């Protein structure tokens, strides 16, 4: 061969970007009215800003927003972080937490199927539930069925589900529903919490020998 071999000729395989799905499952019941919902909205904007600052995370992290009060609403279906426009949420109504958990688990299951069908590699999905209360206005059987499904999904590593209780939340009740120890938000420190979440989503590609996710640092939470 007479041609000069140079490394500029190296071409890269065109693989779809791996995806890291994250559902924000947000309590918008009546008790969140006022300072809490304002702080949550500001926190969402902080999250969007931070996660899209990292160019790889902006393409890999997919965010969906589900709100729950008397209704369970998909405010935002999965979208990559670079095109995530945080909604402005308002608060009213009851706390249909069981149905909300089901909806979030459905979203994650369906999204993974889409990834598989399209040959997209992905990371373990996260659901991040933020609530100021306990289930309310819902049949107890709905809540216990959702909790059982969540336990099954966690033990089969289908999802990592984190619960954050806002000031006044019934942490003991939350701990009955979710698998991982719920953390308690100190004051209304949503901005700090979302900065932590954004950083965690950016780090999620770090390989891990035992699937443990470090608990959030002191500063915004108390266990």
């Amino acid at each position, binding site marked *: 061969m007479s041609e000069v071999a140079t*490394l500029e000729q190296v071409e890269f395989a065109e693989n779809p970007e791996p995806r890291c799905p994250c559902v924000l499952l947000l309590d918008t019941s009546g008790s969140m009215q006022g300072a809490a919902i304002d702080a949550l909205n500001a926190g969402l904007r902080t999250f969007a800003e931070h996660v899209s600052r990292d160019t790889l995370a902006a393409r890999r992290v997919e965010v969906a927003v589900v709100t729950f009060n008397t209704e369970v609403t998909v405010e935002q279906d999965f979208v990559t972080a670079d095109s995530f426009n945080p909604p402005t949420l308002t608060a009213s109504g009851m706390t249909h937490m069981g149905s909300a958990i089901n909806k979030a688990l459905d979203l994650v299951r369906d999204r993974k199927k889409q990834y598989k069908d399209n040959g997209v590699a992905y*990371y373990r999905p996260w659901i991040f539930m933020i609530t100021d209360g306990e289930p309310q206005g819902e049949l107890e059987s709905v809540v216990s069925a959702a909790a059982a499904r969540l336990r099954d999904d966690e033990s089969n590593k289908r999802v990592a589900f984190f619960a954050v209780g806002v000031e006044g939340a019934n942490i003991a009740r939350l701990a009955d529903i979710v698998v991982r120890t719920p953390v308690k938000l100190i004051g209304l420190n949503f901005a700090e919490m979302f900065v932590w979440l954004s950083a965690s989503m950016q780090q999620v590609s*770090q390989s891990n*020998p035992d699937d443990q996710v470090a608990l959030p640092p002191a500063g915004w939470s108390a266990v």
Partner: protein
Amino acid sequence: MTAAPEWTTIGVSVRGSAHERLGLPCQDAWAVRRRPDGGLVVAVADGAGSAAHAEMGAALASAVAADYLTGLERPANDEECCAALSAALTRSLAAVTAKAAELQTEVRELACTLVVVLAEPGRVAAAQIGDGAAVVGERDGSVRTLTIPQTGEYLNATTFLISPDAISAAQVRVESGAFPHLAVLTDGIEMLALAMPSGEAYGPFFAPLFAFANTDTDPDEARAQLESLLRSPRVQARTDDDLTLVLAVRKR
């Protein structure tokens, strides 16, 4: 008898931008050894991002496996070759376990993947635990993977040397042939070098690399050029993980 063929090797590990951001060291490690009979040994390890002594585990595992395979008598057949690779993995695990005891820490804190390749005249064999890949190529530029990334459902959930049953579940492949071109890599560069999810080697990635390794470039200069490719914006835009690429070519 012809003279033992001459191997030229270029190996580079580059710290990923995510590791820089998090203040983590480069947790990849590689080792290359020439055997007295003209064979070549390559070992590459990728320390788990969340393990406290990942870089130590990776360096130790790759060096121990490479040393073991270098000092070994030439395997007589494919079965002996497979057994030698398994024994190399076992030695690495023992070394990592002993190091954990010495440091008074959990062995998981030294978790790493491990790919070992033994290239003998007429035969090449590879064993792999976890992600990464071993690739062989012909002089006509064709390439294929010997071992492919071993991941579970999730991209960041792989098997490590210290995982239960990791050695018995390792991929082991032996192939007869001359295979003048050989590459071993860690998962940081997987998405650029392999067509996923099949794990097939991507020809346009490897052909220029092997052609480059075949030129008579000064070894230091060649390593610098490979490193600058791995640090280039077009690579860094696509991965934030540590990157390791070891190239070996048997000169004509």
